[in-house]
Structures are given as C-alpha cells and as structure tokens.
C-alpha cells in the first residue's frame, strides 16, 4: 500500500532521525558496533563466555540504541546462541533422518552416559552441554556431531566414550576432531567434468582481462546457468537486473548456508575449491559493478572458516581480490565472511538479508527482488556456492564447452550429495539428465525403496520412478539424494522431516508456524495406529493449503515430502490406517486416554 506522498515522506524523515539518534548513541556506550555486525558481536560474546549474558545484551542495546528485547529477539532466533551457559564443551548431535538410520539413538545415549548430562541441556557440573541439532552437512559420515563446532564423524557408542574420555583428560576438541574427507565418488570424466576438475587460482579471473562486463554477462546468460541452491532462477537474469539498477553501492552475497538436510556439496566445494567460489563472486562483482562481497557461512561449518579466510587472504596477496584485480583498471572487489548461527530459514535469500543486517532471519514480503532492494535496501545479488563456482568455470572454460555437457534444456553439471543406505555416500558430479537408477548403481545403494530428492523440502520417489532423470524438465534436485532401504520406516522419516520444519519455521506466518505443528499432531495419530483414511485425506488438503498460503519457500515446501509420499506409497498408507472405520471410533483409544489416571489407582 502506498501512503499519500506527504505521509510517506514524513515517515522517511522519521526513520532518518531515528537512525541519527542511533548513530550518535553508539559513541557514548564505549562499545562500537554496527547493527550489521550484531551477529559477529553475539558470536564473540558467546565464544568468550559460553553464553550471552544479560550485561552483554544491555551493552550492545545501548551501543545500538535499540531496546534489549530486540536483541533478545535476535538471539533467541538462532539455535547456536544461548542465554544460559552452554557447557565448557558444547556438543551438537545431528538428528537428521540419515543420522537416525545410522544409529542416532545409540549415540545419543552414549553421550548421555559418558557425560552424565541429558540432551538439550547442560549437565550438573556445567562442563557438558548436549544439544540436538538439524543436519550439520556431514550426511556422508553419520552419525556425526559438532563439539565446540569441530566435526566428529562416524560416531558409535565406543567412539563416543573414547572422545569424551580424551576430552576429560584435557584434550582439545580441535586436536582430536575427525578430518572431513570430500568423498568425491564420481565425475563425468574428461572435458565433461565442469566443477570438480583441476583448479589453478586465478584461472577464471584471468579471462576477464580481455572481456567486458557486458560480454561476461552475455556468456552467463547464454550458458543458461540457474541458481543451484534449488530455486533455479536464471543467473544471467539476476545479474542483469542488479547491473541495471541505478542504485549503489551494490552487493554480492554467497549463500553458503547449506541447511537442507542431506546436502553437503557446498561443504565439499568450499573445502576443495574455495578459490573457485571466490572467483565466481568476483566475476559477479565485475558484471554488476559491485566491490563488496560477503560469504554467509552457516554456523555448522565454522570449522571451514579459517580455510576460507586463508584463501581470501592469499587471494588478496595474489591480487585476485582487492583493487585493480588482475591489473584490470577499476575492478575492485573484496570479500568478507559472515558466520550464521543456526537457522535453516536463513538459506532463504531475503531471510539471509535480514540476518546479515543483524535482525531476526525472517523472510521478507516478496514485494521486491533483492536485485532491486536487497541488503540495506540496495541492489544485491545472492547466489549459492555452487552457482558461483559454475559461473567461474563457464568463464574459464568458455560457454561453448559448457553447453556441450548435460541436456539441451539443462546444460552443465550438477553436484549431488548422496547419503543414506548406500555403500558409497558422497559427492557425485553428474551431467544433467542422469537417471536416478544410474546414481543408485554408482553409489551401490542397498535395496533402495524410498528416495528423497532435494531434501525434506523436495519430493520422494519410489522404485517405479528410478528411471526419471535429474534435470530441469523432470526431477529437479537442489543437490541432495537421501536413500532409504526397504527396512526403514517411512513414517519415521516423514515425522523427522515434520519436526525439522516445525522447529525451523521462522514463526512469522500462520500456515507455516501452526501448520507444521498441526501436521505433527496428525502424524502422531498415525504413529499411535489410530489414523483413519480420512486423516490421509486431511493431510493432503491441509498440505495444499500450506503450499498456497505460506509466506516463503520454507512453508510452501514443508508439506512436500508428506504429500509426495502419500501419492507414491499409497499401499503403505493404506496399511497403517484403520481398515474398517466406523462412525463410533475416530482417532481415540480409551485405554491410552486413561493410562495416566490409572497411575493413581493404588
């Protein structure tokens, strides 16, 4: 809605005044911090004290001239920020369905026994903080955990005992954590390998010396490159929109908040080809005319931070970042790192922008594209790690070579993170058009039955569909394939997904906040063997309502797995609902309902 012009003018004035007040307020407090640096400040305090103390909140709210409740609101949004001590050792154990399949429960018990604490709390000694957390991007090595944000993989009860014992003896998590191998299992081979081929720093940026921004943009457009995070928005279109926007400065953001459970391709790219990503960002900067790049790295990948920072520093020394990059007059671009703090929804681009501005990571209303009004209302390009890497390769190799891979409708390659019931979980670079069956064979899947494509927000497929191809025009995948064998319980998987969304919803819009909670109640009926065929129907129609009305992608896709599972495994759902429902008994069991009261019988 537009207010009459005078009113909106007045509003702008007021907003400006408020900003002025804030700016002047910042000096008095002795602490200098900008709103956009709030997350960094909170991390600093959290790392220092193990939690964020009330005095820290008071100090930062004074410095920013905002009320303490606003800071509290930001802190409580992020999973990794604690208002109470979180233990000398803070352990985050992944509870994704892959982890559950590989022995999550046993490992959880082992942690509790070894530390004497209970999950989602701190043990009485204050030494051990045990928390469950959503997928930490190590699905190829489950069950896995982060201890003080260092990775510990392939856990079992013996290993847990050993790790805890060594920590008790004084070892540091950083010293005894596990190395994280890349597990690159397969590439298309030869010239068809695009992303995971050998890499020399500067190989793509060097090409820019003889290219104008317009021609680079034209190449990106011609390559048909789309956003690899899962939304598949044409990258050329995005960059052009940002380039053509008259406002400045412009910003480039790399979305390294790979939160979709089962996805770890960006982890591998950042671990093995961090430079390629930086080059991709610089190319975007070159095209749109931006000098500011930021990587929004998810908190779960804190252990990758030093590596990225070192690469950035090295690039600066090599003149691949900084001013007049590669000797190109006026090509200035630099990159900084921003650490997220545990919020899946911040992978949604507008939520990420809010998070970067030091706010709660709530998605914005879709009134403007970030390329019109993004970071601080300025034109902004946000792309995923893989997209930037692919862009760099397109410029390095030339668009013609790129177009020779994949399918005509979807050229190029795609990284897939394969996990679950298979012998060779890991990263598979595939040409677009590869079928699911080929992937299942390559990874030596064990009796695949239920395959979840693209994580919980994607769709599941059954054995009938294994000949479908991963491509834009058939089976779209954001990059994750989770394989579940015949021995797994579909309902357990779906309930896990549902819990994930219920927890990760930003809580702003009704259908997502309440809808996922309501679906949980319904799924509980199925678990208690009290569901009727009408309950299956309810889930279908309620899921559709969520898809229609939710504010952002999270809510719109949250019921996907459930809806596709119903469609593709009808016989399974038939087997778990009451066969002869009557009007006398709906989802209710008198025996269960009086159990709690019977406790008082003696």
């Amino acid at each position, binding site marked *: 809605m537009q207010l009459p012009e005078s009113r909106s003018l007045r509003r702008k004035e*007021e907003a400006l005044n408020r900003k002025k007040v804030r700016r002047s307020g910042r000096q008095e407090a002795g602490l200098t911090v900008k709103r956009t640096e709030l997350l960094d400040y909170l991390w600093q305090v959290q790392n220092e004290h193990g939690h964020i103390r009330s005095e820290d909140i008071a100090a930062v709210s004074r410095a920013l001239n905002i009320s303490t409740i606003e800071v509290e609101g930001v802190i409580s949004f992020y999973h990794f920020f604690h208002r109470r001590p979180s233990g000398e050792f803070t352990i985050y154990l992944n509870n994704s369905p892959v982890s559950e399949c590989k022995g999550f429960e046993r490992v959880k018990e082992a942690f509790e026994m070894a530390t004497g604490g209970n999950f989602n709390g701190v043990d009485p000694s204050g030494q051990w903080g045990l928390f469950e957390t959503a997928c930490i991007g190590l699905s190829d090595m489950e069950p896995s955990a982060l201890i003080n944000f260092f990775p510990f993989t392939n856990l079992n009860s013996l290993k847990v005992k050993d790790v805890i014992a060594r920590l008790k003896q004084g070892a540091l998590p950083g010293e005894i954590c596990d190395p994280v191998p890349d597990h690159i299992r397969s590439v298309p081979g030869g010239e068809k390998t695009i992303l995971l081929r050998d890499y020399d720093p500067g190989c793509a940026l060097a090409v820019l010396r003889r290219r104008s921004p317009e021609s680079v943009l034209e190449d990106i457009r011609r390559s048909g490159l789309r956003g690899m995070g899962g939304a598949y928005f044409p990258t050329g279109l995005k960059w052009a929109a940002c380039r053509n926007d008259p406002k400045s400065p412009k910003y480039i953001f790399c979305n390294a908040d790979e939160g979709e459970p089962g996805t770890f391709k960006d982890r591998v790219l950042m671990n093995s080809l961090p430079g390629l990503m930086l080059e991709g960002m610089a190319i975007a900067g070159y095209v749109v005319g931006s000098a500011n790049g930021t990587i929004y790295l998810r908190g779960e990948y804190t252990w990758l931070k030093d590596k990225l920072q070192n690469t950035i520093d090295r690039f600066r020394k090599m003149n691949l970042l900084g001013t007049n990059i590669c000797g190109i007059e006026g090509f200035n671009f630099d990159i900084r790192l921003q650490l997220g703090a545990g919020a899946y929804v911040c992978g949604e681009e507008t939520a990420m922008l809010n998070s970067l501005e030091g706010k709660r990571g709530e998605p914005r209303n879709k009134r403007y594209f970030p390329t019109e009004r993004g970071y601080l209302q300025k034109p902004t390009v946000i792309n995923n790690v893989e997209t930037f890497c692919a862009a760099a390769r397109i410029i390095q190799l030339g668009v013609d070579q790129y177009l020779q891979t994949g399918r005509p409708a979807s050229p190029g390659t795609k990284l897939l993170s394969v996990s679950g019931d298979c012998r060779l979980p890991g990263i598979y670079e595939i040409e677009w058009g590869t079928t699911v069956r080929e992937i299942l064979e390559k990874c030596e899947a064990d009796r695949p039955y239920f395959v979840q494509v693209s994580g919980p927000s994607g769709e599941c497929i059954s054995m009938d569909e294994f000949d479908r191809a991963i491509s834009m025009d058939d089976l779209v995948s954001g990059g994750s394939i989770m394989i579940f064998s015949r021995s797994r319980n579909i309902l357990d998987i779906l309930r896990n997904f549902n819990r994930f969304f219920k927890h990760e919803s930003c809580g702003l*819009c009704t259908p997502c*906040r309440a809808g996922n*909670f*309501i679906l949980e*109640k319904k799924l509980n009926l199925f678990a208690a063997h009290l569901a009727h065929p009408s309950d299956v129907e309810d889930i279908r129609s309620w899921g559709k309502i969520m898809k229609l009305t939710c504010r952002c992608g999270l809510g719109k896709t949250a019921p996907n797995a459930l809806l596709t599972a119903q469609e593709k495994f009808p016989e399974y759902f038939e087997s778990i609902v009451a066969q002869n429902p009557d009007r006398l008994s709906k989802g*209710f069991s008198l025996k269960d309902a009086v159990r709690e009261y019977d406790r008082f019988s003696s």
Partner: protein
Amino acid sequence: MSKAKMKTNGQAGNTTEKEPAQITITIDGREIRTEAGRNLVRVANENDIFIPSLCYFEHIEPPLGTCRVCTCKINGVAGPACTESVKEGMVVEASTEELADARNAIVEMMFSEGNHFCPGCQKSGDCDLQHMAYELGLRQTRFPHLFKDRLIDFNPQRMIMEHNRCIKCGRCVKEVFTDDGLAVFSFRYRGNETRVGIDYGQEAKLTDRQARDAMNLCPTGAIIVRGELHARPFGERRFDLQSVQKKKPVEDPRITLPAEKKTIATVSLAGCFGCHMSLLDIDLKLMDLVEIVELNKSPLNDIKEFTKQCDIGLIEGGCCNADNVEVLREFRRKCDVLVAFGECALWGGVPSMRNTIPLGECLEEAYLNCITSMPDECAVPYHDDLPKILDKVYACSEIVEIDYFIPGCPPDANHIWKSVLSLISGAQLPVLYSEFKYD
C-alpha cells in the same frame, strides 16, 4: 502510541498536489475503477468484495503480510492481498472456492494454535480475530486444538501479555515505540515457540495514552492494560450486531413439518448445562417444540435411558472422563444425526483449559499439594464406581463422528432453535449475524 497515527494527525500542510492516476483492475471478473497505488484489500472491501484480513492495519507501511488471511490470486499467483497496491490491469481472484477455503483454514488455524477462550476474554466482542471468524461463519475448526502451554506475562508495569491469545501478527512489533524511538515489543524464539516479547523497561516509558493505543492496536486480547478494559454488555461491543459485509437479505423459507414427530435426545457431558439453559431461552417457542418433536433421553424430561432409536441427538460438553465417552458413543449408536452444540462439545471449551497441563500435575495440585490438603491424609480419588478421568478433555468430534456444529458459549437460543428446525424440516433457516456468537 502508534507512530503512524501521530503522523496522520500532524500532517495537514504537507500534502503535495499530485492527483493519483485512475486505473482499472479486475476482481473476480468485475472491473473496478480506482486510484493507482491504493491497497488491494481496501479497494476490494469498498467495492463489496469481502477479503478478510487480520494483520493488516491501514497505517502500518509496509504492510505486514504475516497472517495470510487475505490470500488471493493476484495475476495468477497466490499471495496476500494486503501487501499489494493496485496497478493498472491487475487481475485478482478473490472468491474462488479454493481460496475461500484456504482463508477459512488459516483463521481456524489461529483458533486451534492459540488458547482462545472467548467467554473469559476481556476483548470478546471487540476482537478482530473473533470478528473475522464471525464474518466467515466458522462453526468449528477442522484442525485439532494444539493446547500448547503458554505463560501469561504479568511482569510489565501496566500491561499484561496474554501469550495464549497472541496471533503473532506483528502489529505491535512494527508500530509501538517509545518517544526515544525504541521498540517495546519484539518477536522472540522461532517456529511454534514464537512469541512476542515485551521490554519491561521500555514499556514503563510509554505514556498512558501510548499504552492504551498499543492495547487497541492488538487485534486480539493479547495486550491488556491493567484497569483499562472493561467488558461491555452484549450489543454494545464493536462486533456484536452488524456484519461488515453487505449481504442480500434472505427471506425465511417456508417450513413444512414432517407428518411424523421427530424424536430428539439431549445430553450434557463435560459442560455446565449452560447450553441446555440457553435452549430453554427460546421461551414461548418451547410450546412449539413440544408440538413438533418428541423428547427421548434428555435431562429436560429426566428420561435416563434410550427407549428407541432417535432422529437427532444434541450433545453439550466434551469428554473429560470414560463415562462421557460411553455416553457419547451410545448417542452415536442411538441417534441418526448428532449435533454438537456449544464450545465444549465443539473443541473442549472451558474444561479444556486443563489440557495445557498434564493430568497428573492437575490432580496432584488439586488433591495433594493444595493449600488445604493435609500431608499423608489426602489421595487422588480413584474408585471402581468413579468414571476414569481422561488425559485431556476431548472434543466430541475427536471420538465419534459429529454431523453438525453449533458454536457459542452458550449458543444463542435462536441459533439452536433454527438449527433444530432446519434439521427437522429440511429447510435452511438463515442464522443472523447477531445470533452467531462464540461467547
């Protein structure tokens, strides 16, 4: 107070002279001329196309778009109407069956997500959420009530934050600031734990006027200023009498009664008998009632057992113990049509206030740990002759299939009468806006 309101007041000399362009948009196939840039919800509602809205508040810019109650299809894409400003050639679908159903569902979600006990709420009758449900004619929610345990924050100096009633629209978060420009409210936590936090220090700095405005800004009774809100009698509250929608007057249909008298049974389960009392409020029509129906098992005639199969069963109250379940199931067997009447039967109502707390804790508090109980001398009553208490209070529809629902605590006498008469005669008697109440 809300900044925007201040702005509108102090604005006079500042207006520029530019005339907004006249444009044409299409809503549900109807062409509408209006000024460019105006809010779609307002344009539609001014043209008698009702788009419900809750978080939308005309002074808040940009609009919040949080509640999603105004979801429409705008140029083919589903999205909230409140965040749209009208543009030339805009095509809006507002009233398709799918959209209407989705919008109803969202209001229902709010009722099942929060703990909304209308009869006990200071804002009842002045509540936007309740009003919107009246406008949409919602009888019950299709969703299970969630009964999440929430606290009520009594800490602020003047205000009470009733988290049970909050719908997280964000109006207060975006609009309520102190004179220093500091926010008083902010969202906290996330997911289904999301709630609006209040800054005690900043709240104390609000003037009385600003505090009152914050309360009035809240669409439900979540923000209460102590001593400020006095319940007003029925008929004097904002949303009691008149719908905002212009509806064509419907003539009362001709009623033809069946040759044979229908038999009716009634019962009160976990309720207060208030709905039966309300039933008696039909006054002289009671004479008509005995003319056209025959009462079987019912507290009205004190017949304890069914003597035959009945046509209609009226159920008051939900199920809080095993006996309620037995009786309800017997009614389902013995009655062809079951009607749940009153909030308790519909979703648990006042007795279900205990549902946010585990049964064990309720009983221990009531019988073992309460102030009058003697140590070692008290026990939770448990005997073979006593019906067993259920872990929570269940809605009738959670246990057996219910055919019709009449809301209200208690339902208006005319509402009950018209519903019963409709069932008997097959004619659809229109229930007036003023007869449709949740409290």
